[in-house]
């Protein structure tokens, strides 16, 4: 088993664990953070699978823009809840 295959094995296990936590998280902000961690881990997997293009795009879009959109949605929801109480 070369070093790359061991690393891929480890990443697959961590991916599964984080995916379980992301899907079954209680609080929304935890789900979003787990999703962002999942996307960053997938960037590492793409680099190991020799797909640099996809790694850069997933890094910038996956953990960058998608997490930002989720956080802004939760932010504007908290802001409104804060106001109405």
């Amino acid at each position, binding site marked *: 088993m070369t070093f790359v*295959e061991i690393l*891929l*094995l480890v*990443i*697959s*296990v961590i*991916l*599964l664990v984080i*995916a*379980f936590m*992301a*899907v*079954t*998280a209680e609080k*929304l902000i935890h*789900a*979003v953070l*787990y*999703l962002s961690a*999942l*996307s960053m881990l*997938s960037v590492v*997997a*793409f680099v*190991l*699978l*020799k*797909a*640099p*293009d*996809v790694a850069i*795009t*997933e890094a910038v*879009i*996956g953990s960058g*823009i*998608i997490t930002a*959109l*989720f956080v802004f*949605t*939760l932010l*504007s*929801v908290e802001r*409104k*809840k804060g106001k*109405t109480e």
Partner: protein
Amino acid sequence: MIQYAGIALFVFGIYGLFVNRNVIKIIVSINVMEIGLNIFIISIGYVTGSSLAPIVSSTEDLGLVYVDPLPQALVLTAIVIGVGTTAIALVVAKMIHSQYHTFDLDEIEESV
């Protein structure tokens, strides 16, 4: 092994999509499904051994073994489509919240 993880993530996202009743968690499960699908698509193009990323630096290196570039082009498109659909889903989630003041679909069904 990473291919099995991709398939497991894909099926897991589908499970999360049906089980969750919270709008934001459903969108998170959609993204988990798409990440799993992207990993699976890339994994069918991988060639073990000393394969290189699909960058052909010059005409000399002819005999080298490369990874399959087509799945990578497909995944680039799939990621950007994922951003597009997630942005629309999140805006609809914001409108749901401004209308019903909750993200929980069960509460919304009762209040209707």
